[in-house]
């Protein structure tokens, strides 16, 4: 008999004579305490994200490429990892060219294995889009894909994320429903709620454990 068969048999024997419990999921418990007036949603998200050292800016969508340039140049960073095949990637490249921005653009356009050393040690910053935000917990939703791979939001010390104001939901439950996650999830979906951190030494909070030391969120107010 296989391990699988043995385990399932033992579990079934344990359940003999019992009936499955009905599903009494009371969705009010995970939604009602976490609802905000439309005007307060951004403020709620901001306050939670800022509480964990996230830098948040609200701006018109026409201005974000210049803001990204400013963020990099003010920190004196040498390069920026971006996703050339995405809409925002194309806009960034356009702006970079037009403005003659100094930091070098690195396109994530080949398998990670081909430039692992560089990705791990040489990249200063990255820019990614997001699939939305969750006000209740101060979280970004990221759905990395072939155009904007997973490591973009993990390896560089600075991660800059674009968040459309219209895609901020009150709570995780609402987000899950709105985007119908149960119908099928991508290979990897992430909630990111601040820069990487740890409190494993004496519970002292330290940022930049293994992922980004800094997270900057640009909220596009008219998008």
């Amino acid at each position, binding site marked *: 008999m296989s391990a*699988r068969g043995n*385990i399932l048999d033992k579990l079934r024997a*344990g359940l003999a004579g019992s009936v499955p419990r009905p599903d009494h999921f009371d969705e009010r418990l995970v939604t009602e305490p976490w609802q905000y007036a439309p005007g307060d949603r951004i403020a709620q998200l901001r306050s939670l994200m800022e509480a964990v050292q996230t830098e948040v800016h609200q701006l018109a969508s026409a201005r974000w490429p210049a803001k990204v340039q400013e963020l990099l140049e003010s920190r004196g960073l040498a390069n920026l990892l971006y996703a050339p095949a995405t809409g925002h990637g194309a806009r960034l490249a356009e702006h970079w060219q037009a403005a003659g921005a100094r930091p070098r653009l690195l396109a994530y356009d080949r398998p990670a294995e081909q430039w692992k050393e560089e990705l791990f040690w040489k990249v200063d910053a990255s820019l990614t889009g997001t699939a939305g935000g969750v006000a209740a917990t101060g979280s970004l939703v990221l759905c990395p894909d072939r155009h904007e791979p997973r*490591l973009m939001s993990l390896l560089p010390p600075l991660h800059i994320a674009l968040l459309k104001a219209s895609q901020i939901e009150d709570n995780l*439950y609402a987000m899950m429903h709105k985007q119908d996650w149960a119908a099928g999830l991508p*290979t990897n979906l992430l909630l990111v709620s601040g820069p990487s951190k740890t409190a494993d030494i004496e519970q*002292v909070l330290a940022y*930049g*454990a*293994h992922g980004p030391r800094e997270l900057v969120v640009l909220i596009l107010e008219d998008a």
Partner: protein
Amino acid sequence: MSQRIPVTELADSFRGRAAVALADDQLRTNFRVAMDSLMQKRADAFPDADEREGLRELGNHIKARALSRLPELLEQLEARLTANGVKVHWAETTEEANRIVHSIIASRNGTQVVKGKSMVSEEMEMNDYLAERDIECLESDMGEYIVQLDGEKPSHIIMPAIHKNRFQIARLFHDKLGVEETEDVNELIQIGRRTLRQKFLEADVGVSGVNFAVAETGTLLLVENEGNGRMSTTVPPVHIAVTGIEKVVENLRDVVPLVSLLTRSALGQPITTYVNLISGPRKPDELDGPEEVHLVLLDNGRSGAFADAQMRQTLNCIRCGACMNHCPVYTRVGGHTYGEVYPGPIGKIITPHMVGLHKVPDHPSASSLCGACGEVCPVKIPIPEMLRRLRQENVKSPAEQPKVKDGGAKYSRKERAIWRLWAWLNTSPVIYRLFLWGATRFRKLTPKNVGPWTDHHTAPVPARRSLHDLARAHLNQGDPS
């Protein structure tokens, strides 16, 4: 990097280890400070008691519902994951689970493994198993890394290195990594970051645990703050997740309250920095992520606990650690005193099913039954009730067929005979009166040394007159003797 773990290898008892821990002022301070702070953080994270209680009720309901359909949910999880391209393995014992993990690594000629935090891999003693086969298995959670570097085991399921302070860690890093000694926590973390980043880059295989496995979508959900879990599950070409069979939930929506309960109960955070939902390996056109994803489902005594409707509730556990943070015993003796993978109240009720009561005979009684653990448990496991049940199972005679693995570990004929005598004495009026008469008259003759009791208390001496006696005198307004 072969490491044999000193603490659990000690041929010593819970009592012996507790005595050592209680005499260690540094250890006691480290735990006390940490537990006080974790309790405060949890309290702050649940400012509304009604909201908290409603959510705990829902958490309990979700886990109980999942357990009531566990076999079919496991099959559904397997089917969905398989359809998503994840390979599912089943293991009844830790030995089997280790063999599976090793064979996957060997099939890729792997020699270097990085591991995100996983308590199930601690159950398996995976690091040792792989080290004996010349495979380096490196912990990448900062706390786990510190503990591994010092050849120890975690003392807390969420905060593995909580028993150490920064000075001890500074010395450890200096001795083992050859870095300049620094007591700056940020600098210590950066040393860990640099060292481990190279290891992530080189690793052949990444191992992780699982917080929740969703049957509906075939998804493995992992929570973490550091990013080492994402590294371990994204960078190496192979990802192996190991988990207990009780981690499956029915629907994706079920994880909404469970994640909230978990992060708030554990750390007082509204959410962890990363919530990582993995539903499959890298697709052919994707540029990163593991080519292979495996899930190892481990039983290791869980189906034994499942067979008993009361003990089944131990499988509700979502491993938040709140019960240990609030436990007056754990706070004083620390995690290593328990001598097993899972310390504290939850450890006391799940460990017997894994290793048998013979190995942990003192676990059920190492509690004052104050009830704090049951009060804070986010999925409402009645821990004190289960400790009482385990105490009963612990002293059952073989004829009484104990229901827990190695039940009757503390059964003693002598003790049973004494209790029988005691019951007879208290239920036979004539004998009882005779006994009382004797005990009050010859009170000076009671022994001064009555076993462990007199180690820490003065010996009990019966009163000159019994309560019956005094009551009768009071009612009759006279002296009955």
